[in-house]
């Protein structure tokens, strides 16, 4: 069972993508729920809000224990910031590095995976043990250190399952769809979607 840390943020898109990968998943907010999971997604949202809820409800210790147990973790956007703050990833992160929402965008990684960057952070310094998994125009956007994968953007918003399968596939029997979801999705994303002509969820 994959837990999706459900304090504040974009939980539903991760649950939907994990379902598509046939990885059983559930939202988690309690220590016992988290410790019963075999993998964890730390979703995007507001890193400040998430940090305050972790402190107020004393979830830091159990997150530390989970990560140090070696079970796989995927952290997106605010989750990446949280992992850097808690030293799960030896990286420096600059928050909102592309500016405000007007600087948000969708693009492909240099190896072709679709990512949404929403008020996204940038990776500024990588420790010696940190492995780069993906770049955009040469800049690292997804990294791994031991069992923790962090990404600046949102693969769950584009429906591209590559990083979930890579980070969490060992926590269950991940089955990649035969035709990558992203091929179809990104085609829709590269132009302005106008629901007057293109109803959302039409696909």
């Amino acid at each position, binding site marked *: 069972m994959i837990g999706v840390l*459900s*304090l*504040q*943020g*974009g*939980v*539903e*898109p991760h649950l939907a993508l994990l379902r598509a990968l046939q990885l059983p998943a559930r939202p988690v*907010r309690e220590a016992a729920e988290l410790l019963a999971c075999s993998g964890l997604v730390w979703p*995007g*949202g*507001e890193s*400040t*809000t998430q940090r*305050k*809820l972790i402190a*107020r*409800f004393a979830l830091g210790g159990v997150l530390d224990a989970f990560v140090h147990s070696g079970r796989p973790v995927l952290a997106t*956007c*605010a989750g990446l910031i949280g992992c850097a703050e808690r030293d799960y990833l030896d990286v420096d992160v600059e*928050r*909102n590095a*592309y*500016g*405000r*929402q*007007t*600087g*948000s*965008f*969708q*693009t492909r990684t240099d190896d072709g995976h679709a990512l*949404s*960057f*929403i*008020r996204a952070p940038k990776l500024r310094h990588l420790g010696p043990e940190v492995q780069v998994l993906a770049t955009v125009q040469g800049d690292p956007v997804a990294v791994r250190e031991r069992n923790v994968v962090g990404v600046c953007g*949102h693969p769950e*918003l*584009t429906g591209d399952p590559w990083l979930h399968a890579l980070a969490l596939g060992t926590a269950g029997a991940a089955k990649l769809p035969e035709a990558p979801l992203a091929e179809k999705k990104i085609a*829709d*994303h*590269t*132009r*302005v*979607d*106008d*629901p*007057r002509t293109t*109803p*959302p*969820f*039409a696909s």
Partner: protein
Amino acid sequence: MTEQEDKNAPPSFEVKLGLARMLAGGVIMDVVDAEQARIAEDAGACAVMALERVPAQIRKEGGVARASDPAMIESIKQAVSIPVMAKCRIGHFVEAQILEALEVDFIDESEVLTPADEQHHIDKHALRVPVVCGCTDLGEALRRIGEGAALLRTKGEAGTGNVVEAVRHLRALRGQIRRLTTLEDDELMAEAKTLGAPHALVAAVARSGKLPVPSFAAGGIATPADAALCRALGAEAVFVGSGIFLSEDPATRARAIVAAATYYDDPRRLCAISKGLGKAMPGLELGELRPEQRLAARGW
């Protein structure tokens, strides 16, 4: 070319929707100055709504309520790192363009301000910044999505501290969505006519059983229990207007409402969260309002 390189074109709808999705589970708080914005951020707000007067003050003082002074919104942007939203009048696309030029993160086309156009809402597809709109039922929700809203909220009855209208609107949305899923395909056009909503969107909701954009609650939320009630009725997040900074102890109440939005279905936690918050804002019975004082009736 990535979206990022073409700064003038509106981004794809999905990019606007992306920020709406990241606000889920959170609390968006009305603030009137930088100090309140810092209190809200420190309490765990996932965004702030910058405005010159909270709805209860607008209600009391009367007169025409307009978009806030850009300098005031700017000072709030500088005070916090969380997203900053701001309100424009219904149909006032120039106020919206000004807020876009100011680079707020989200625009609220809001019935709390005095409507500028009684017939037309803003064409929200034309804006680069995502827009949230109020709704009272499914037809209104789908009309706003048709115009390009990336996020919906209930109208509730702002500035009353009375959650009854927000609950009415959440119940209406849920009930009407559930009803749509029971219809046959050949019944959807008649339903679209009844709802006054685009057929394509009606069909999409009938198929998926949910709205194509997130829906939050707003209007009259004053306590952690109010916030939890709205979450339990399907709102993915809550806006709190007058309820925080017109209460006796805003910082404590703000923290409590943030926690209640997360643990909304855990009564044991809600009990602990709700203790010792001081006085809530004074509330208004809806019967005390004259019809022209009802903000939810603005827009269509």
